[in-house]
């Protein structure tokens, strides 16, 4: 289980900003989101989208617990 946060255009696409999702790994979380919303699932692996686990960018796999915060960060606008 993990608390999932979406930012920027991903939030508009999904229609939510924060959600708790059942998953024990980052890949499992991606699969669960893909199953719930195929368009979002596709966007999450789109160009320039990064995943942050507990506020640190992760490339590849990571284990998740109920306390883990996962954020999907689309390409940044800058300030």
């Amino acid at each position: 289980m993990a608390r999932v946060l979406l930012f920027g255009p991903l939030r508009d696409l999904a229609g939510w900003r924060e959600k708790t999702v059942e998953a024990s790994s980052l890949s499992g979380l991606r699969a669960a989101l893909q199953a719930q919303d195929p368009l979002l699932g596709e966007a999450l692996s789109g160009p320039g989208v990064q995943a942050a686990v507990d506020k640190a960018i992760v490339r590849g796999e990571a284990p998740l617990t109920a306390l883990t915060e996962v954020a999907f960060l689309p390409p940044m606008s800058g300030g």
Partner: protein
Amino acid sequence: MKVVLQSGPFDPGALLTAFTTGRRESGAVVSFTGLARAEGGSTDILELEAYEGFTETAILEMAEAAVKRFHLDDVLVLHRVGPIAPGEAIVFVAAAAAHRREAFEAADQLMDYLKSRAPFWKKSVGPGGARWIEPTARDKTDAERWDQPDPLT
């Protein structure tokens, strides 16, 4: 060194006064104030989204690197989040150094990095609808100027 995200308007002059007061060894303070342009009435509310905790850390790393590279005495970055009306200030950066060249280059670099690499998502909302903004090509090439250890010297 301080990095602040703030959801209400701020006064750049008040920040500059506080940042400058009491400095005895800094000869130079450069400030940058970024304002939301009205663009002849065609724009639009800006909505800036940050990832609390993550965005400040990323900017703090930029500020720390600038302090080291440009031998700064101090840096302040204040960035608005949330809705911003035309004419309002979006960002304030100040850099203090012994000499002016370092202070200018540091503020310049910090702005280039903030505009192209800081974790913000920015939406422009107007009569024609809303659109997400990405860094311009110029923002990207401006930032790349600093990726070499010392491109300008």
